[in-house]
């Protein structure tokens, strides 16, 4: 049966070739029309699995085995004391054990201003106390961070690459980060814990950049009232792999 099919098909293939040869100039384009035109086979093959897998294996463009990264960063705070707006400028030192794990230390200096709500409360109290000596309206009680030191551990489980506006390709890793340290507040010192998630983009063998979202918990003090505070930081860093 198998041979019969093969013979019939071979004859079917050869007949037009012979006739073309006899007919002089061949029309090569027409010869393509009989290639892969068996609809029955195409239909049957559609239901068959392809037992094949393809993947791409590429070297990491930036070696992060036993490398040290030094970066400067800017962070904007959300949450925390509702009367205080805090922005941070800081630096981080990260030791990359390998592309999946790194240990780091970070320092942030905080710059605080009153929020519009805080300013309104302050101005209202000030105005009221100026005209009314027996005013019970109080200035808003605030506490705010002055500086933070953190020790962190980061795990980079996801990686990828991005097209940099058709000028090149950069590889990146997405990481989760746990941190623990001390926060100096206006009222004193508090322990601080942080959980973050971000992405490090390794632009060249030397230049790095990071974007990170970080949730922090600490305690502040309003006069005698100690309270748990949570804030969220959006952090952007740019750094160099110094070694």
């Amino acid at each position, binding site marked *: *049966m*198998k041979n019969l*099919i*093969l013979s019939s*098909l*071979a004859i079917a*293939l050869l007949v037009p*070739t012979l006739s073309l040869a006899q007919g002089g100039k*061949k029309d*090569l*384009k027409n*010869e*393509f029309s*009989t*290639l*892969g035109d*068996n609809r*029955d*086979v*195409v239909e*049957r*093959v*559609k*239901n*068959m*699995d*392809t*037992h*094949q*897998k*393809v*993947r*791409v*294996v*590429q*070297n*990491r463009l930036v*070696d992060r*085995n036993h490398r040290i990264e030094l970066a400067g960063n800017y962070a904007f705070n959300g949450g925390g004391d509702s009367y205080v707006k805090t922005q941070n400028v800081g630096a981080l030192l990260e030791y990359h054990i*390998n*592309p*999946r794990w790194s240990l780091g230390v970070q320092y942030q200096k905080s710059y605080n201003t009153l929020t519009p709500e805080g300013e309104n409360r302050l101005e209202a109290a000030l105005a009221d106390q100026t005209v009314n000596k027996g005013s019970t309206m109080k200035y808003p009680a605030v506490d705010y961070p002055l500086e933070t030191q953190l020790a962190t551990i980061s795990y980079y489980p996801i*990686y990828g*690459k991005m097209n940099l506006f058709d000028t090149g*390709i950069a*590889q990146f890793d997405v990481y989760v980060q746990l941190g623990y340290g001390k926060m100096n507040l206006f009222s004193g010192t508090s322990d601080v814990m942080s959980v973050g998630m971000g992405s490090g983009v390794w632009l060249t063998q030397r230049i790095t950049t990071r974007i990170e979202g970080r949730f922090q918990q600490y305690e502040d003090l309003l006069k005698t009232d100690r309270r748990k505070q949570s804030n969220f930081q959006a952090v952007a860093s740019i750094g160099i792999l110094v070694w």
Partner: protein
Amino acid sequence: MVKTVANLLLTLSMSVAFAAGSDKDKMNKARELYEKGKLDAAVDIYSKIQPSSDFWLEALEERAWAHTRQGKFEDALADLQSITSPVWAPQVGPETYMLSTFVSLKICAYKDVIKKVDIFKKRMLPRVDALQAMIDLPMSEETWKTISKLKKSTISMSSLGQTADKFPRYFYRDSELISLVKKGSREKADARMKALAKADLAEIETNLKKMKIIDIELIQNVLTLDKDQTVKAKDLKFSGTDKNKTMTFPVSGGDDEVWVDEVGHFQVKAEDCPYKGASL
């Protein structure tokens, strides 16, 4: 002793000369080894051709042939995955598609055979038109302008880019054509281009015939299979890579997007002909 040292020095000097040699020399050496059946050695030399070289696509194709002869179909498919990607479509010859289809048939990846037959038709038909036009019509100003660059040897596959399929493959390496262009003999250069175009058409025709044989083999294999025969796909696993130094990305069958940086970095894991009675 003296003879041994002399031999060592000779081997060393040949190695140094080869290392410093051109990609053309490397290709010639690899081809010589391939002809002699020294496939491992040939593969090693083909692997030394860098992606920036004008010989890179040929090196990958010929390495795929070597892998096929060795029965290393996964390695052959990995190379062919690179060179048959749409990025290189205007630069790749018909034999590459034929080889890729053949290897898929060998491992009974019938769906891929159908897909590759289709790709062969889609990529070769416009080329047949372009080559036929080159044979039938006098040389256009645009073509003469392009080949005139041979006076300064500034043509390569990459410089031709997407227009490469409008010319005979590697016409710029043809010494006779180069000599005619340098003499400014347009008529004779036109005749030479026509001869090269005819050779390319003949190559397409030869490979079309081979594709038809593959097609027949496919029909035979599929039609003689038990209609209800289904083979559950095995859980194919790649060998491990050094996760500290590499990144791996999956490639799905329907992925038409090509990242140029990935070309040359494919790995294939395939099950060897899972359908009973279907091997070649």
